[in-house]
């Protein structure tokens, strides 16, 4: 070993992940490690709490996607108390969840991931930020993104109590019915969201797909991993954010598993590495065989692209069309190119907007019947949703009073953790040769990260943002030889 390279964004985003690269004598990369250096231990202090408080307690795992934890927790409570919410309650939950999915996906595409593509991977650094996006797409579009996000967040607040840390979830329903007046405003919001989604897809076509070098980048080997994919689907195997069963396809795209979330422990396991606080999920059916891809490795992926791969179709017409275009362009199902996740996110944005509109038009949704009172003695409950960043499972075991004895949380980014680690390793191997570490490495690593939209906030607490990177090259004694910055 001649040297080590430490990519340490925590210089400014404290404690949120670092990359440690070992380089051999011949100058080639031996191995790159992605380390997540923080832990908060929610599972440990959930013990002793009242079960009904879990949707509000666990939302504090992440202030970026509090609704995902709130909803997974609420569904776990339905299951814990063996209680079926009235149809209107389920519809309101799902519609509010769609609204959340839209504002979160829009935030990512335009503000966080967008700079890579809308502005361009080779654009000057100074433009690769939100201002650059606005410069490229025009203030009008930027204004629209802000306006739609503000509108949807306002609607969520009214329906769920608070947008950051919602309170409306109860076992057997929601705390308050939707008024017809609010339903109408959700319908308007859905229409605005639909326009925004179509605009975003148009932009993606014009700016990204029309540019052969971008397409080449998306399909390049450096960003490709042949893994399994998992996602929630409905009874007709169509993508679902709010409810259904879990489906896994193999690296060839063939159905591999289809299971009820109650059986998740038979299929999903967590591998612990002593060098990171994040746990790495893998498919038990295949086994943990280290950080490698392929059909022999239990490593799998979740989140937008994985959801499209793992489902048969989308239930809404425009999104289905958009998904077909994605697969036709990128060589058919499954697509293994990590960077195509940005495109898949927009397909989902469209789907969520269509679905939100459908639900807002449902005459039943404003029914005052939104509660079923639980009568069963609680023992154990499991709830699953698709968070924007992937499958999220909450599992509670309680005593007969409904006091938590054990809480197990499989968090979206954890499912992806092994594949993200693979991506980082691959980017490092592809770029680091000899003594030179150039900015290309930093950009490429950052782009590999961003496509996943990793929320280490859920395992730790990073708000995925402009990720400044600093690479330090040290010699064997740990002396700094040189430093490369990408601010």
């Amino acid at each position, binding site marked *: *070993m001649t040297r080590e390279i*430490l990519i340490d964004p925590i*210089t*400014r985003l*404290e404690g949120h992940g670092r990359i*440690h690269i*070992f380089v051999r004598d011949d100058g080639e990369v031996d*191995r790159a490690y992605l*380390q997540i250096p*923080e*832990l*908060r*231990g929610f599972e*440990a*202090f959930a013990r*002793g*709490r*009242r079960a*009904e*408080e879990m949707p*509000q*307690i666990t939302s*504090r795992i*992440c*202030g*970026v996607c509090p609704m995902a934890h709130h909803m997974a927790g609420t569904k776990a*409570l339905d299951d814990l*108390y063996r209680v079926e919410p009235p149809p209107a309650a389920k519809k309101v939950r799902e519609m509010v969840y769609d609204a959340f999915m839209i504002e979160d996906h829009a935030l990512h595409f335009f503000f966080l991931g967008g700079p890579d593509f809308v502005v361009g991977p080779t654009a000057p650094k100074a433009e690769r930020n939100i201002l650059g996006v606005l410069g490229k797409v025009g203030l009008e579009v930027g204004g629209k993104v*802000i306006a739609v*996000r503000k509108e949807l967040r306002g609607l969520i607040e009214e329906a769920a*109590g*608070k947008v*950051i840390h919602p*309170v*409306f979830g*109860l*076992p*057997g329903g929601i*705390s*308050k019915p939707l008024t017809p007046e609010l339903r109408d405003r959700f319908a308007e919001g859905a229409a605005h969201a639909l326009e925004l989604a179509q605009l975003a897809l148009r932009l993606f076509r014009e700016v990204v797909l029309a540019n052969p070098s971008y397409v080449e980048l998306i399909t390049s080997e450096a960003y490709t991993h042949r893994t399994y994919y998992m996602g929630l689907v409905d009874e007709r195997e169509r993508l679902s954010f709010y409810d259904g069963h879990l489906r896994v396809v193999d690296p060839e795209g063939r159905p591999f598993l289809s299971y009820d979330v109650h059986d998740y422990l038979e299929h*999903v*396991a*967590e*591998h*612990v*590495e*002593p*060098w990171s*606080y994040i*746990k790495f999920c893998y498919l*038990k059916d295949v086994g943990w065989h280290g950080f490698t891809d392929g059909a022999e490795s239990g490593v799998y992926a979740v989140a937008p692209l994985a959801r499209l791969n793992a489902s048969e179709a989308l239930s809404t017409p425009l999104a289905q069309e958009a998904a077909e275009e994605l697969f036709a362009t990128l060589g058919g199902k499954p697509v293994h190119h990590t960077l195509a996740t940005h495109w898949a996110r927009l397909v989902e944005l469209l789907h969520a907007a269509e679905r939100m509109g459908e639900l807002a038009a449902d005459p039943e949704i404003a029914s005052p019947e939104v509660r079923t*009172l639980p009568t069963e003695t609680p023992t154990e409950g499991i709830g699953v949703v698709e968070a924007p960043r992937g499958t999220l499972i909450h*599992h509670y075991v309680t005593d007969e*009073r409904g006091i938590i004895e*054990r809480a197990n949380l*499989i968090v979206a980014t954890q499912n992806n953790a092994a594949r993200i680690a693979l991506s980082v390793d691959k980017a490092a191997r592809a770029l680091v040769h000899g003594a030179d570490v150039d900015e290309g490495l930093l950009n490429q690593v950052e782009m590999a990260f961003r496509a996943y939209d990793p929320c280490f*906030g859920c395992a730790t*607490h*990073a708000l995925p943002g*402009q990720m400044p990177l600093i690479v330090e090259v040290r010699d064997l004694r740990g002396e700094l030889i040189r430093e490369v910055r990408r601010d």
Partner: protein
Amino acid sequence: MSKPKVAFYWCASCGGCEEAVVDLAEQVLDVVGAVDIVFWPVALDFKVADVEALADGEIAASFINGAVRTSEQREIVELLRRKSKAVVAFGACAWLGGIPGLANLRTREEILAEVYRDLPSVADGAMPREEVEVPEGRLHLPRFDEDVRTLDQVIPVDYYLPGCPPPVALIAQAVTALVEGRLPEPGTVLAPDVALCSECPRRATKPEDLKLERFVRPQEIVADPETCLLAQGLLCLGPATRAGCGAPCVAANMPCTGCMGPTGRVRDQGAKALSAIASLIAPSDPEGVAKVAEQILDPVGTFYRYSLPASLLHRRVGTDGGRPAEPSEPVAAAGGGEPR
């Protein structure tokens, strides 16, 4: 004249306070336009060195959210303290410890054992360690502190902005007041110093002499949407919680859980809430009181939901099967061997 300088920083938090600032930026552009943000690591490109280059006291106000759990966080908040005229503990975690502060109910070892060994999905591997030999060399992980601590257990704090997260209107008011130099008395909590009940739309339905025979849990009843939740037997912490949020939880027909913290000179939010609720118990004979009180499950997680690190308990409590409460000690610098 140059605009007043402002900094935002986060410690151990969920990112919700940051989202609240983004909401502020999207909603109240003139507030943001009136200041010069010199440090906001999550959103803008400034370095610690930029802050170091400033003169002491040059920043008008630093808004710091999240509780403190690592040595890095401590170094940065100490730096911001030096450079700032005013430091604002932003949100429930910075002020009182917040929900992640409930981690103080467990020891570091208990947390590690639960998360990396005992949970049912954990299959294989080795517990994370501060220093690890891998085939290629040696890796380090920072140690996380034994205790979650509030901001003012680490640096002197001038003002407190309550809420989980703080309401946008209060943030806007606070930023405006501070940049205009309208400085309230140090130690002030920047929200109305009255209980939530006083601004609750249901206050008219709360009986003066409320007495309760029993408590109910939110899943046990369909709460009437107009009547005081406490009067319906739900554990609404409105009487012991500071106002200023506009009661959005009550508007959603859910009881207040106390995220805005205590009013006035209350030293211990949990003790105050507990006594406020206990005083409502109708039976006066000890046996009757005990029977009603028994219905309050998990009193620590209920009354100290957001304030355990700031409380007199600070850490584990006897009822939890752990060691008795003990005073917190300054935690030795963490980060054992962490590469810097």
